[in-house]
C-alpha cells in the first residue's frame, strides 16, 4: 500500500499543490527567480488567447462527445439485435482503441492531403470543394472526427454490455402488448440505460478534455489557434514554445482545466447517484 500512496502523493497530489501555488508566481521553467504575481497569470491567460482556447475546448469536447455517444449508442443497438454473426463482430470495434493513436492519427492526416488524400479524392469525385487542415473549420472537424473514430468503440462496448443486461422479460412483454421497436427504445430501454448514459457522458467528456495526440499530429493547435484546446495551450506554453513559453501561464491554465474536470466529474456523478436513488 505504501508504494501506491507514496507515488500518488508524489506524482499527483504534490504536483497539484505545486501547480496551484506556482500559478500565482511568474518565473521560468525551472522554477527559479519566482516573483509573486497574485492572479496576474490568470488575467494574462485571458489576454494571450486562453479564453479562445477554452472556447475551442468547449466546441471540441461537445462535438467529440456528441459524435462518439451517437455513433456508439447506435452501433451498440445494432449489435444487440439477436441475429447470427453479430456477437462475433463486437471485438472488431476495439481496434481503434488499442492501436497506437499516433499511427492512426497519421492515417487521418493523409486523408486531408490536397488532391491525393482519401477525403479530397471522394469530394472531388462528387464535385465538391476540397477540405484542408489549414482551414480552421475543416481542422476542427478533422480532430473531432478522428477523436470520435478512435474512441467510439469504448462507448459501443459499455452500452452493449448494459443492453445485454436489460431484463428480457420486460422487453418481450412490451412487444407482446404491441409496443413497436421505437416505443420499446424510447420508453423502456433508454430510461433503463440512464445510469450508463450519465457515466459514459462523464468518461467521454473527461477523455475529450484530455485529448492531445489528435491535435499534436493533425493540426499542432492550428491553423491560427483554431484547434488549440486548453490542454494544448498548457503543452505549448510549458514545452512547445521553448523560451517563448511561460510556465506561469501553463500552470494557471492547468488549474482552470482541473477546475473544469472536477466540476464535470462531480456534477455528473451527482446526477448518477440521484438517478440511481430515483430508480431504487
Amino acid at each position, binding site marked *: *500500500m505504501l*508504494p*501506491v*500512496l*507514496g*507515488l*500518488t502523493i*508524489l*506524482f*499527483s*497530489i504534490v*504536483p*497539484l499543490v*505545486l*501547480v496551484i501555488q*506556482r500559478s500565482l508566481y511568474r518565473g521560468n*521553467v525551472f*522554477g527559479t527567480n519566482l516573483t509573486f504575481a497574485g492572479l496576474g497569470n490568470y488575467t494574462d491567460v485571458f489576454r494571450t488567447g486562453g479564453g479562445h482556447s477554452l472556447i475551442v475546448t468547449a466546441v471540441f469536447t461537445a462535438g467529440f462527445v456528441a459524435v462518439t455517444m451517437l455513433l456508439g449508442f447506435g452501433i451498440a443497438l*445494432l449489435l444487440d*439485435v439477436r*441475429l447470427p454473426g*453479430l456477437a462475433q*463482430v*463486437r*471485438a472488431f*470495434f*476495439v*481496434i481503434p482503441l*488499442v*492501436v*497506437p*493513436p*499516433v*499511427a492512426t492519427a*497519421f492515417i*487521418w*492526416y*493523409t*486523408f486531408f*492531403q490536397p488532391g*491525393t488524400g*482519401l477525403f479530397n479524392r471522394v469530394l472531388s469525385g462528387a464535385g465538391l470543394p476540397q477540405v484542408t487542415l489549414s482551414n480552421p473549420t475543416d481542422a476542427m472537424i478533422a480532430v473531432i472526427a478522428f477523436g470520435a*473514430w478512435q474512441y467510439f*468503440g*469504448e462507448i459501443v*462496448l459499455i452500452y452493449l*454490455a448494459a443492453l445485454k443486461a436489460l431484463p428480457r422479460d420486460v422487453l418481450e412483454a412490451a*412487444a407482446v402488448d404491441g409496443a413497436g421497436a421505437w416505443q420499446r427504445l424510447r420508453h423502456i430501454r433508454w430510461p433503463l440505460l440512464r445510469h450508463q448514459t450519465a*457515466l*459514459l457522458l462523464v*468518461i467521454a467528456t473527461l477523455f475529450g478534455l*484530455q485529448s492531445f495526440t489528435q491535435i499534436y*499530429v493533425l493540426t499542432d493547435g492550428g491553423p491560427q489557434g483554431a484547434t488549440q484546446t486548453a*490542454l494544448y495551450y498548457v503543452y505549448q506554453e*510549458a*514545452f512547445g514554445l521553448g523560451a517563448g513559453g511561460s510556465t506561469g501561464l501553463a500552470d494557471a491554465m*492547468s488549474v482552470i*482545466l482541473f477546475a473544469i*474536470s472536477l466540476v464535470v*466529474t462531480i456534477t455528473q456523478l451527482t446526477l448518477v447517484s440521484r438517478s440511481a436513488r430515483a430508480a431504487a
Partner: protein
Amino acid sequence: MTGMRLWARITVYALVAVAVLIVAFPLLWMLAAALKTQSEIIDPNASLLPLHPQWGNIVTAWSTAPFGTFFANTAIFSVVTTVGQIATGMLAGYAFAMFDFPGKRTAFYLVMSGLMIPFTVVIVPVVQLLADVGWINSWPGLLVPNLASALGCFLFRQFFLSAPLELGEAARIDGASEWRIFWSVYRPLAQPMTAAFTVIAFLQNWNNFLFPLVVTNSEHLMMISQGLTVFQGQITGIAYNLLMAGSLIAVVPVLIVAMIAQRKVVEGLAIGAIR
C-alpha cells in the same frame, strides 16, 4: 425479435457492414498507401489499390528510423510499468480491503483523489520535479512516475472486498503467514481481474504518448509513438507512402496481440471505463 422480417434483417446487416467499414477504412487505406509507388501516391487519379505493391517501402521505412530501438524501449517501458502497477495496485487494494490500520481512511481518500487528478493537469510540475532530481531523459524518469495506478488500487480493493473472508481465516488457523495467505489464497482468486487489468494497463502504457514526449527527447530512449513523429520529420516530400509504411509497422504488432487476446481486451476495456 427472433421473428424479424427479411427486410429488417437485411437492413441490420447492411448497417453493421457500414459500422465495420467505419472502423476498417482507415486501416485499409493505410495498407494500400503503404504499398504504393511514389508516383501513385502523388497522382490524384491513381487507383485506390496499389497496382504494383511495393513491399520494399516497409523495409525503407524500417531503416530510415531506429524502429528496433523504439520497439525495444516501448517493450521495456510497458512491461516494467505494467508489472509495477499490478504489484503495487494489488498489494494496496488487498491492504485496504482486508486490514484495519490507523489512518486507513485518510490514506484511501488520498489515493482516490489521485483518480480525480488527471495526469494532464499536473504535467508541468511533474516534469519540473523530475528535472529537479535530474531524471529528464532517463529511465528512472520514464518509469518511476508510472509504477503505481490509483485505478488499479481501486479495482483490486473492490475485488478483494467481495472475496470470501473464510478462506483466509481457515488458512490462518492452519498456521499460514499473512504473506502466504495473500500469495496462495487471494492472489490466485484475483486471476481474472488481474488478467483484464494487465491487458488495459499494458495497452495504455504501450500507447502512452504525452508522458514520454515531455520527459525525453533523446532518440535512444524514444518509444514507438514518439519515434513515429521523429520518423515523419525525417521523410520529406508530399508522398506519404513511407509515412503509412511507418504507421503500419507500429499498428500491426498491436493488432496481432489484440486479436489473440480479444476476449481479455474487451473485458479489460469494460472495467477500465471507470478510469
